[in-house]
């Protein structure tokens, strides 16, 4: 903990909302009970690629207990163009979910079917059926260059040339399914929903319903996991439309199956990588092509897939290509990132391959090639506001015992006969940065306390609590004296932006920092008269407002606030994406790049008879810039370990290759690991503090960097077995099959 800080980074501080959570009183969307709620189920298409010819809802409407039905005709988020199996065509609101489900089953749809394609490799073949997402094609390429790729490859003594992938296609599985409760009061729509972005969600809902923003009132208190799936509007619009029709409050809590099929998915990725290095192990060329299966909505998220290779390693020559492919699969979205977890998985396998060829161990190779803190970004030339990657790797290596434990592939067995493996993975990505400016409101109370109106929901590890830390530190208040007021409420908060891109602590944190300064100026103005010194000579800390050079001349916040002649409110907004402080010789205030930085390492035992992998140790080192809410930061990094285990070994949504129907739309079949699948005592979070020059108090984001290094598990499996498994999930069956290959 930094000596100069009295609130930030204190490991003793608790989450501001933890008591509400353990008592079950924090309200998530469905916990709102605005009178006689109706419940919703939807009818999904039984075709993967088709046009709806007609929908007959008469039988559904006639069912006792059904109060409203909507279809693509009157619900703006439904369409008569079917691009994947299970796409919603109609929704029913009824007195309970069973009735709604029965009615949804009575909706009769006639289709004009078209041929569909589900395999991205097939979709790229000439003559493949057109998915319908892009005009006249199923795929397109983009390309970027750095230096001279041919020259770089010529300089290389060693080249790895590998085609890796596909990685796993899976759904976020947010424990609270996407849920909204909507009701109307006159022309005003009230929405309670889980949200990663209340203000933008409100805007999306308003535009879908063609309403002005001041008639849509959205509140999101608890959000049961976001992971990137709760930025959107669809479920709330369905509930709003049905609520208007039925003139009753409507709750659309998607069923687990609806959520698996109709919400967004992590997209599969494949890569063709040619990476060259000199015989000393210095990288000279990266020629990479990433293919992303953009499924039926065709988002070009794969464009970011080159980032880990571009940002992590110093390499003067590069050709970075990506290809976005359309298929008739349920739609994709962001999963805790845009493209970096699968891209890092594939590129870090290639880096290990290259290390092996150069004769260096994977850690040595990385330490030799990673960009150093003083290096500017290789493409933009802008300085990095912080870069703790070396620190991450070194601390990680020590925690995991790399030097003693690393061995040549398939060269070490444990006494019980299982194969021992150890692996690491590291990367730098563009997350954790200052995003679009947002606002913040800090209210000072007459009793010397303060509360914040935070424009985001509680979707994760206590971002609201981190904001309270920043406010308490800046106002010099005690931590306990700052509380979260109402939050995630579009009527009383300033727009807090999106909980995505690992940006809320730094971006909204900066706004709260500015709002606190605004409030502090007003407080100091008031205190000046009481202390008999001008405001510029006043400081505040630990619940006291005092004369800087004579701390015994002080007043408590209570004593000052009690005399507020008018209510003191601090307003702030995010500062620009500029350096606040000077870094590596660059002047304060010049533009910079903020980077997400992390490394992970694990030690495993592989049973060559059963293919089972046991995790013996898993360390996750993340550069947080500065840990603001220490325990929240630690929780998120520990959580990253479980999510990396999930990506490597479990998550996968399986489609029927003929119909494209989802075959495992339940938690039982689409596995998420539980407490028995790993021993959490073997997990360790390592917080690295690099004091970011841009973030308030030196912080930056960790939400995505902390889940992206699951390639460590693939590298450890290789170290154990000598076989690469580059198409996760790494199942026992795949391990056994790989062991059988010569």
């Amino acid at each position, binding site marked *: 903990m930094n000596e100069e800080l009295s609130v930030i980074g204190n490991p003793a501080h608790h989450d501001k909302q933890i008591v509400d*959570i353990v008592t079950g009183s924090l309200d998530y969307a*469905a916990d709102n009970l605005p009178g006689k*709620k109706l419940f919703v189920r939807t009818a999904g298409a039984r075709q993967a690629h088709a046009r709806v010819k007609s929908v007959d809802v008469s039988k559904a409407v006639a069912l006792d207990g059904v109060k409203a039905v909507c279809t693509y005709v009157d619900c703006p988020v439904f369409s008569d163009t079917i691009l994947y199996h299970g796409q919603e065509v109609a929704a029913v609101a009824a007195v309970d979910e069973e009735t709604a489900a029965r009615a949804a089953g009575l909706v009769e749809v006639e289709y004009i079917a078209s041929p569909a394609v589900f395999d991205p490799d097939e979709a790229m073949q000439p003559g493949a059926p057109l998915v319908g997402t892009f005009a006249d094609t199923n795929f397109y390429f983009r390309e970027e260059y750095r230096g001279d790729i041919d020259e770089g490859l010529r300089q290389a003594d060693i080249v790895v040339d590998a085609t890796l992938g596909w990685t796993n296609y899976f759904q976020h599985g947010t424990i609270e399914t996407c849920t909204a409760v909507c009701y109307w009061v006159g022309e005003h729509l009230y929405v309670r929903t889980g949200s990663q972005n209340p203000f933008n969600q409100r805007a999306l809902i308003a535009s879908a319903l063609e309403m002005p923003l001041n008639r849509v009132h959205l509140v999101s208190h608890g959000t049961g996991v976001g992971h990137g799936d709760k930025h959107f509007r669809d479920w709330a619009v369905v509930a709003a439309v049905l609520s208007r029709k039925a003139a009753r409050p409507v709750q659309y809590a998607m069923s687990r199956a609806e959520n698996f099929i109709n919400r967004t998915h992590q997209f599969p990725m494949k890569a063709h990588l040619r990476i060259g290095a000199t015989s000393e192990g210095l990288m000279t060329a990266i020629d990479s092509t990433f293919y992303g299966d953009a499924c039926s909505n065709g988002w070009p998220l794969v464009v970011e897939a080159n980032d880990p290779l571009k940002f992590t390693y110093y390499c003067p020559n590069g050709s970075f290509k990506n290809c976005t492919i359309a298929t008739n699969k349920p739609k994709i979205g962001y999963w805790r990132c845009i493209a970096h977890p699968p891209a890092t998985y594939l590129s870090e396998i290639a880096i290990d391959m290259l290390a092996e060829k150069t004769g260096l161990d994977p850690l040595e190779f990385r330490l030799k090639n990673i960009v150093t803190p003083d290096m500017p970004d290789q493409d933009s030339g802008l300085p990095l506001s912080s870069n703790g990657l070396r620190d991450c790797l070194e601390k990680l290596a020590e925690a995991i015992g790399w030097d003693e434990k690393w061995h040549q592939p398939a060269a070490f067995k444990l006494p019980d006969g299982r194969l021992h493996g150890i692996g690491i993975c590291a990367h730098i990505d563009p997350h954790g940065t200052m995003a679009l400016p947002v606002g913040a409101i800090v209210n000072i109370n007459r009793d010397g306390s303060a509360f914040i109106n935070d424009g985001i929901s509680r979707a994760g590890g206590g971002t609201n609590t981190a904001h309270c830390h920043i406010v308490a530190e800046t106002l010099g208040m005690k931590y306990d004296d700052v509380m979260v007021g109402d939050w995630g409420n579009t009527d009383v908060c300033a727009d807090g932006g999106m909980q995505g891109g690992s940006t809320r602590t730094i971006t909204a944190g900066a706004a709260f920092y500015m709002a606190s300064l605004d409030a502090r100026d007003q407080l100091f103005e008031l205190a000046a008269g009481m202390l008999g010194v001008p405001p510029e000579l006043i400081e505040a800390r630990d619940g006291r407002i005092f004369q800087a050079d004579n701390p015994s001349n002080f007043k408590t916040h209570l004593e000052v606030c009690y005399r507020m002649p008018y209510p003191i409110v601090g307003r702030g907004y995010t500062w620009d994406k500029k350096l606040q402080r000077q870094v590596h010789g660059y002047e304060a205030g010049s533009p910079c790049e903020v980077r997400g930085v992390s490394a992970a390492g694990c030690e495993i035992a592989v049973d060559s008879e059963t293919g089972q992998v046991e995790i013996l140790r898993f360390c996750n080192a993340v550069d947080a810039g500065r840990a603001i809410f220490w325990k929240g930061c630690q929780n998120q990094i520990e959580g990253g370990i*479980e999510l990396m285990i999930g990506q490597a070994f479990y998550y996968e949504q399986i489609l029927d290759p003929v119909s494209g129907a989802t075959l495992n739309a339940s*938690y039982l079949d689409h596995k998420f690991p539980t407490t*028995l699948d790993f021993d959490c005592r073997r997990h360790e979070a390592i917080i690295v503090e690099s004091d970011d020059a841009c973030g308030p108090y030196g912080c930056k984001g960790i939400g995505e960097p902390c889940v992206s290094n699951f390639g460590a598990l693939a590298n450890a499996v290789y170290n154990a077995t000598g076989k690469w498994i580059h198409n996760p999930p790494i199942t026992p069956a795949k391990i056994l099959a790989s062991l059988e290959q010569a």
Partner: protein
Amino acid sequence: MREDRTADKAPGISRRKFITGTGVVIGGLAAGAGSLFSSCSPADVTRTITLATTKPQFICPYDGKAFDSFEELTAYIALEYPGLQPVDRYVSPYDGREFAALDEFRSYLDNLFSRAGFVRLNVNGTYHEVHVKAGWSLAFVLREKLGLTGTKTGCNRGSCGSCTVLVEGLAVCSCLMLAIEAENKSIVTIEGLSGSGALHPVQQAFVDNDASQCGYCVPGFIMAAVALLDRKPAASIDDIREALSGNLCICGNTKKMVQAVLACSQEADNE
């Protein structure tokens, strides 16, 4: 004699008053019966009756004699008090619905009391008589009818553990149990743990360890842990891992939760 009694009680009566043993009035006194009902949550359409017996009894309004069925009562009245004016309407006390014909009224009541009957649920030490449909899960009734929304649902299929409550002391997925199955069993929800105001030791340990990210799974984990520790106060880490393995935490927060539970185990004291 019979005529006298009829004359005493009956003059001017144009509506029959049939009173059940629970005090629920079926018939013309419906309005007056409102005070016998208490609404248990703002969303509630089905009233909770906080009286003692569930079985409807049909009581003759003229002499107080009780019958098990409506048929018996009407037969008795036809015999004992002939010459009364016929009923002009029947009013349901539950929702004020009126019926002109006895048959309709009867089938409506049959519906209320059989297919969609009342169950008596003992939740956190309080009895609630709740009007449920046969297919409603305990989770649904706890949340939507009793307003106890601390119990979350993540799958409604028994595969995530978010809805865990204690039924007769055992951790049960309340989404898998029908409300009618839970009749007269003791149910404890997350709200019941801290009913006295102070946090339950497991809740306190979750606070101490900040064992939560989004928090949605947390009530379910806590209930599973309480069930374990009630059964086995000196639970080992493996007991804990096993007891919590029916619960999913999609944030990946189990390390802190396991630590919190371990801190409550007597085994932790010995280690």
